[in-house]
């Protein structure tokens, strides 16, 4: 007699098992198929093309009514299996029907996870799993707004599908970049850019707080920073959970999923399970490739043949037109691993291979995935790649060919991109000069003027020579920012402006960084360059700053911090001193020291106490002295005409004015000033980055002094008559240094490179340029003159920096 097989769930896995079974032996079983969805098996992964309008539902049906009939399968669609009586071997349908079985196959798939936040049960809050969800999304049009929570595969396919219908879509993603499980930050950046180009709004690191409704229907999503994102539909695509309810109820062994062995048998020898509902060897599944392998094994087991399910590497692609990405294997960095990174900024291509023991163990690709199968094959086979290591990243077509061009970033610049800022020379003009016969750097300087002033663009000019002349021109060695790049500091700074680069991942992609995410050397430098280039735009990345600048205090060797409030021009009041004394008492400050910059240092403050001590100091009107910053530090002064019989001008007053204008500014390195009232120089202005000596006739402004590892006397930049001129020249000089110097160079180092004469031309002789520099400085200051202590002590900014995540010391003490 034919045995009876009952299948629970007409999904992709059970559907494939059924096909395999019927193909091998159409008469082995009498099959009954239950499905909770009111339809047979369709290709669930193609719901996305249906949503975007690239396919119709009919095109994705895998088994039609005719197919089931021809194969003698009894269909009970729209009916859920309510129970299984394993002792009697009968299945109980929702309507109470009892059906006996010899073998039972679970293919119940999984349930989308719905975050149980307030409002999750409102009408219009859906997941993305089945045709009903898809149809609801398809009912949206260009007058609707939709929020998608989850920037993974499903969320992005949902977002792109609706965006293709003109819907205004916002993706809210909790992690730092999209598809973080499959992509690294660099590829995530490219993906985000492509989605933004499609009109999708992407918010990363955004934590959803609650869903707001009106008359029982969704109205908006509220984030935990209070932002409200209005929406007519909210799609939650935040993960799936194996659907194990029924299996659990009937007493099968269940962990995360229904436990199965290598033959896909559950803890009951007459019951098998396949698909997303199973757990095999600790793993659960979310992509179809392994499910098809399971289906094949299940069919063979049902036919009493021996087969074994083996887990294999899986790969991911995103089904969004125009976003070509591929990810497979393991791509975390590690000591025993090596990365090969290839970027083609012009084409928006990123490829990264992770190698271990001469084998590829992971691959991430964006923009050009044509070779993904070749790489994936090598991951699965564990191919030894030692022989092709050099050219591996270029794919199969290039084996034995030549590697890519390191000059790609400059090659991709348009002709009108400005290369030499001093003389206003574009790339096109330099190319013209080269084509007219200037085939050395000196010749280009002489004929086009490019690179002939401050010299900071010679790196780029040289690259243009290299691109234009090809092999004829030998590229000189240059000092690069770090081992992550072939570019120098100067080149990077210029390219940030020329290519309008506004984030660290963007710089790394466009300038062809050879590490996936940079290192502790390049990241702080890039962060400063962004902060300087784009004031007022949200480019500052705290995580790329050194600890002192991140927590606005100086770390000491024992891990405590020092706190230095600002005292403009070195002037304080009894009230301020009292507040400092009180704070020192209250927070048990072990050392109170007067600094060389004419202010007071509270040393040995615990990190957790920083916001509280800042709060107290703030109450007395004090703000951060930024004694930790690569930025403006102090303006040291003497008492000047107010008290001193030798004083020629109000040096204290001028110092206060300058410090008031300059505090808060970031620069390549720290910047210290002094204003002294007469040539006796009590404020030691002659060894400062900028020093002003007051004389009867006006103000001498000296620059480039040093009194640290190097000892250098500051040199005269200019003598001016009025206080206002002195302030303007100071601001202009500071801005010139901020814009031009390489990160971690003090002014004297920068001046040694560009020449004092050039600096004089810029700020002393060229009055228009002086005004423009001062103007740019003041513009930037609007955004950076924010007391970081007040923000942290009063507004809770970066609170995570100051409190432990958890404290188990107290628990134990109880």
């Amino acid at each position, binding site marked *: 007699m034919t045995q009876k097989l009952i299948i629970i769930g007409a999904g992709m896995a059970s559907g494939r098992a059924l096909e395999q079974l019927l193909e091998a032996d159409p008469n082995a079983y009498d099959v009954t198929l239950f499905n909770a969805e009111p339809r047979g098996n369709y290709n669930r992964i193609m719901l996305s093309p249906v949503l975007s309008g690239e396919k119709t539902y009919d095109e994705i049906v895998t088994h039609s009514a005719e197919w089931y009939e021809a194969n003698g399968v009894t269909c009970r669609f729209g009916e859920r299996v309510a129970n299984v009586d394993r002792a009697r071997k009968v299945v109980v349908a929702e309507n109470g029907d009892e059906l006996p079985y010899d073998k039972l196959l679970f293919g119940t798939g999984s349930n989308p996870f719905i975050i149980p936040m307030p409002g999750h049960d409102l009408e219009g809050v859906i997941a993305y799993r089945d045709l009903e969800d898809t149809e609801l999304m398809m009912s949206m049009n260009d007058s609707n707004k939709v929020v998608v929570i989850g920037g993974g595969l499903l969320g992005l396919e949902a977002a792109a599908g609706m965006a293709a219908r003109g819907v205004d879509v916002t993706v809210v993603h*909790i992690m730092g970049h999209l598809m973080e499980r499959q992509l690294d930050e660099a590829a995530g950046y490219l993906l985000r850019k492509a989605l933004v180009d499609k009109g999708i709004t992407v918010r990363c690191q955004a934590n959803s707080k609650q869903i707001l409704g009106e008359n029982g229907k969704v109205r908006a999503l509220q984030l935990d920073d209070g932002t409200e994102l209005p929406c007519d539909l909210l799609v939650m695509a935040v993960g799936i959970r194996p659907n194990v309810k029924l299996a659990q109820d009937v007493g099968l062994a269940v962990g995360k999923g229904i436990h199965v062995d290598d033959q896909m048998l559950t803890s009951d020898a007459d019951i098998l399970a396949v698909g997303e509902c199973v757990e095999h060897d600790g793993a659960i599944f979310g992509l179809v490739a392994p499910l098809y392998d399971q289906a094949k094994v299940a069919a063979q087991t049902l036919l009493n043949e021996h087969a074994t399910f083996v887990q294999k590497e899986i790969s991911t692609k995103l089904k969004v037109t125009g976003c070509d990405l591929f990810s497979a294997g393991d791509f*975390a960095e*590690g000591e025993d691993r090596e990365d090969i990174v290839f970027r083609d900024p012009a084409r928006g291509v990123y490829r990264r291979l992770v190698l271990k023991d001469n084998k590829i163990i992971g691959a991430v690709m964006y923009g050009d995935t044509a070779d993904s199968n070749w790489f994936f094959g090598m991951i699965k086979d564990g191919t030894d790649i030692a022989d092709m290591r050099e050219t591996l990243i270029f794919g199969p077509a290039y084996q034995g060919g030549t590697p890519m061009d390191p000059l790609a970033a400059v090659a991709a610049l348009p002709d009108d991109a400005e290369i030499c800022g001093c003389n206003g020379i574009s790339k096109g003009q330099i190319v013209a000069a080269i084509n007219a016969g200037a085939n050395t750097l000196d010749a280009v300087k002489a004929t086009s003027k490019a690179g002939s002033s401050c010299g900071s663009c010679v790196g780029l000019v040289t690259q243009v020579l290299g691109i234009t002349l090809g092999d004829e021109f030998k590229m000189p060695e240059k000092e690069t920012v770090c081992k992550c790049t072939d570019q120098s500091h100067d080149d990077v700074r210029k390219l940030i402006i020329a290519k309008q680069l506004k984030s660290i991942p963007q710089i790394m992609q466009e300038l062809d960084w050879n590490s996936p995410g940079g290192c502790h050397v390049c990241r702080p430098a890039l962060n400063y360059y962004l902060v300087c280039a784009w004031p007022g735009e949200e480019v500052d990345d705290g*995580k790329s700053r050194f*600890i002192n600048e991140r927590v606005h205090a100086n770390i000491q060797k024992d*891990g405590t911090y020092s706190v230095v409030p600002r005292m403009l021009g070195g002037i304080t009041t009894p009230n301020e001193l009292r507040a400092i004394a009180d704070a020192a008492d209250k927070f048990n400050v072990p050392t109170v020291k007067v600094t060389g910059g004419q202010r007071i240092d509270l040393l040995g403050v615990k990190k957790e106490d920083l916001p509280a001590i800042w709060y107290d100091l703030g109450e007395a009107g004090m703000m951060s002295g930024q004694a930790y910053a690569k930025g403006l530090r102090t303006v040291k002064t003497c008492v000047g005409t107010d008290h001193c019989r030798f004083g020629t001008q109000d040096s204290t007053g001028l110092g206060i004015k300058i410090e008031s204008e300059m505090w808060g500014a970031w620069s390549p390195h720290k910047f210290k000033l002094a204003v002294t009232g007469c040539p006796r120089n009590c404020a030691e202005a002659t060894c400062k980055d900028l020093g002003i000596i007051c004389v009867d006739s006006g103000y001498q402004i000296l620059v480039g002094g040093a009194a640290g590892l190097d000892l250098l006397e500051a040199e005269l930049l200019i003598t001016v008559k009025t206080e206002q001129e002195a302030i303007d020249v100071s601001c202009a000089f500071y801005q010139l240094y901020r814009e031009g110097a390489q990160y971690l160079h003090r002014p004297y180092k920068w001046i040694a490179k560009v020449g004092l004469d050039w600096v004089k031309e810029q700020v002393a002789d060229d009055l228009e340029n002086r005004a423009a520099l001062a103007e740019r400085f003041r513009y930037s200051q609007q955004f950076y003159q924010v007391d970081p202590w007040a923000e942290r002590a009063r507004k809770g900014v970066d609170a*995570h920096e100051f409190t432990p*995540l958890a404290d188990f010391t107290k628990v134990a003490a109880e």
Partner: protein
Amino acid sequence: MTDFIDIGHITDIPVQGARLVRTQRGDIAVFRTASGNFYAVDEYLEDKAGPLSNGIQHGEMVTDPMRNWVFDLATGEAQGADEGRVATYDLKIAEGRILLATAAIANQVAAE
């Protein structure tokens, strides 16, 4: 079986950032990397490095703020020419929560 204890939500640690967990036997730094991985390592390597939670986090590494040693967060090993290893602890993520192996705070368990 390893036991785990809930120490917070994943968003309590910023991407490429770290937070401290204080225990009876010393501080532990818990990191969150750009690739979404989490690691727990000792905050200090005695006389050599730390406080690591204050370092710059890049790739799956952290650079010590004091002497610029670079540590692999997965293995705890110092990279390059520097020699030393910080202890690492088991940690897992479930439903958005960060769970740290109770072994990491072992003394306290023993004291009970």
